[in-house]
């Protein structure tokens, strides 16, 4: 299990810049970013190499929340995502949000938001996928 950060941000010029500035100052590396907005409101989701440091850097008074996610290692080839989604859908697990990025020529990491992270990890492990904890994730993206 890893932690993704969700940040409440008004949908206005300069807001994202303020976040990236704080993370640059803290020397945090962003691996994936997802922005969802509705009218004037937005939620920015970030997968970073060091979530605790990022959380501190974004700190009060900002509204930031750590969201537990599944990080799963897959081969970077056609059909890799499909294999993961098939295993989870067979187990009745709904993926609420997903992002992914390559970590090498042959390997990618998928980040999945699901209601029950531990159950999803157990099912993926049974299907012989390798899920990452925070330390493994940090090492993999370093």
């Amino acid at each position, binding site marked *: 299990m890893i932690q993704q950060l*969700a940040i*409440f*941000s*008004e949908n206005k010029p300069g*807001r994202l810049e303020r976040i990236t500035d704080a993370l640059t100052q803290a020397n945090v590396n962003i691996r994936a970013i997802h922005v*969802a*907005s*509705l009218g*004037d*409101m*937005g*939620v920015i*989701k970030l997968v970073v190499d060091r979530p605790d440091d990022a959380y501190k850097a974004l700190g*009060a*008074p*900002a*509204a*930031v*929340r750590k*969201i537990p996610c599944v990080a799963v290692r897959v081969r970077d080839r056609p059909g890799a995502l499909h294999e993961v989604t098939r295993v989870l859908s067979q187990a009745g697990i709904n993926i609420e949000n997903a992002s992914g990025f390559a970590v090498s020529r042959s390997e990618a990491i998928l980040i999945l938001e699901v209601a029950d992270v531990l159950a999803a990890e157990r099912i993926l492990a049974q299907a012989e996928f390798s899920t990452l904890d925070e330390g493994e994730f940090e090492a993999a993206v370093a």
Partner: protein
Amino acid sequence: MASVDVYDANELMDRSSLEQLQLQRLRWSIEQAGRSPHYNKVFSESGIAPDSVRSLGDVRRLPFTEKQDLRNNYPYGLLAVPNEEVVRMHHSSGTTGMAIAVFHTPGDIGRWADLVARCLYLVGMRKEDVFQNMMSYGLFTGGLGLHYGAEKLGAFVIPTGAGNSRRQIQFMQIFETTAIHIIPSYALALLATFEEMGVDPRSLSLRFAVGGAEPYSEGMRERLQDAWGIPFYNCYGLSEMQGPGVAFECPEQQGLHVWEDSYLAEIVDPETGEPVADGQEGELVLTTLTREAMPLLRYRTRDLSSFISEPCSCGRTHRRLSRIQGRADDMFIVRGVNIFPLQIERVLMSMPEVGHNYLIVIDRDGYVDRLTVRVELTAETFQGDLAQLRSLQERLTDALREEILVRPRVELVEPGTIPRQEGKAIRVVDERELGGKER
């Protein structure tokens, strides 16, 4: 009742003796008022003889005094003593043509201090207390008014005035402040400074706070009491009547005792000027009973309240006013509907997801009024997804619509982004005059 600990025996007078005293003082006050050019003219033009007031009810034969009368008679038209008897003036912040000046003799200052001492004693202030007075000093009455009263009690008074937040907190620590006097919105703003300094207000020596100078909702008070860990007592006053100390809350926190040995209070229908039934809301009208320099008869305060006539369990016989529901001047009209900012505040403060600070903006979208309520999301309640924000926005819109009968636009903004103020908070921005009107 016999053993109620009071500052002044008048606080426990039985109603009939109190009313007798009021009548005697009212007759004196009318006579005193007649020495001012304004009331002299009012009495001669209206043919009312000051000595024709023979009962408290007769006061209704006198015309109201309006804020505009004070403006028209600026500066000395309401002064009832020779100028050399005046030792102090307080003055409104209004610009030329709108200004109000209020004068005091040494006796006025002394009686004012006694009334404030009575208020502070009521909520437990004694000579051992350390009182940090965080209200502006100067022409505004909030600072000096409480200062004199607290000194009269023998408390140790720290006249910090408003602002300089870090020093305020340092003083609370160094001098072990036990009581404060503060504008509620500044008490909210200071919470951010406490957090920055890593100081918990609940860990200090504070015992109670007096909140004054602006109306605030019960929900806001609960939040303040919770964050500071002390009771906040409401103080009511207006500079025309002296300043703070006209009415004050006792520890029951169920309405404010209006000091009826010093003021004759009426509640009237703001439209007709007729008295309303007991317990019904209306405009508070006050007559000074002891003031020498500038007596005011049937002054329309433009504050909305109601009488609570049931005896108070604290034992004091002076009637209570329900919490001031807002100043008539604060009311604004959107799409033909009358709205008080406090109605909006009440709704906002009932939702934990909403921060303490908010802003109401009124502008025009074409020819239609548009009401926007801007609130900060509290960081702790953020769940991390847009669905929560959308549902909160909908719940707020519906709850506000229910309360004010106008559907507002609710804007959720990031914590800490609505500017905080050290003085009275600016909660309403009306941009309609600048916008679409003549275009």
